[in-house]
């Protein structure tokens, strides 16, 4: 594995994280007719992937899971999706947390790009040695 492959996989992982946060934000405030149907935030889980040959470790997306949080029950009898008690179930998305998540993912993406461009420059200089 080269540093470039390592960086590429790490950036893909951060991209998955950003997409999950975007999905969560998009579904913030959506309501459902029952507790089971309500949207639950997506959360990717990362794992280290060691390449024994080079001693470098990159990131693997272990899976994208639904966060285990209870949907918010809201009494809204006029809502078309309301159940017999007049309640709807709103998605438990914390918008602030999602924004923070997105910001962190994009920062880490940038950090990786920075590291890669430095590495690229050093490699080019090494190749120019005559």
């Amino acid at each position, binding site marked *: 594995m080269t*540093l470039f492959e*390592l960086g590429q996989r790490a950036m893909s992982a951060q991209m998955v*994280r950003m997409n999950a946060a975007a999905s969560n934000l998009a579904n913030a405030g959506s309501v459902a007719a029952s507790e089971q149907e309500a949207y639950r935030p997506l959360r990717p889980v990362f794992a*280290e992937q060691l390449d024994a040959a080079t*001693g470098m*470790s990159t990131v693997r997306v272990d899976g994208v899971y639904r966060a285990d949080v209870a949907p918010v029950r809201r009494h809204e009898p006029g809502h078309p999706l309301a159940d017999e008690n007049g309640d709807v179930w709103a998605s438990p998305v914390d918008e602030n947390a999602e924004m923070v998540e997105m910001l962190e993912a994009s920062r880490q993406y940038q950090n990786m790009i920075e590291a890669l461009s430095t590495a690229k420059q050093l490699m080019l*200089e090494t190749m120019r040695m005559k």
Partner: protein
Amino acid sequence: MSEGLFGIHGAALEIRAQRMGMLGSNIANAATPGYKARDIDFAAALEAKLGGAGDDRAIGSATRYRVPVMPSLDGNTVEMATEQAAFGENAVAYTATLGFLRGRVETLTRAIKGE
């Protein structure tokens, strides 16, 4: 042959490249739960390498786990400031080593050409 021509710098460049990979791994795993950041003790690695140890042995014996300034709850010990500073320092040192090597190459080509 190359050891005689390029002295310490060939070995140094190799370790610098390895260290860049290791620091790159740390930066990549900044969000991985339980990941333990590692770094190569450059002086120890160089000493082992000049002592005749192979690449794997020299790097392996000089690899250290990073001691975090403030441990995080998920067990990850990557601290971006530390990693970026180390990465930058390593890049500068790599460039310096390249400079030494380039000077050596120039000297040798001059000798070959008989200038």
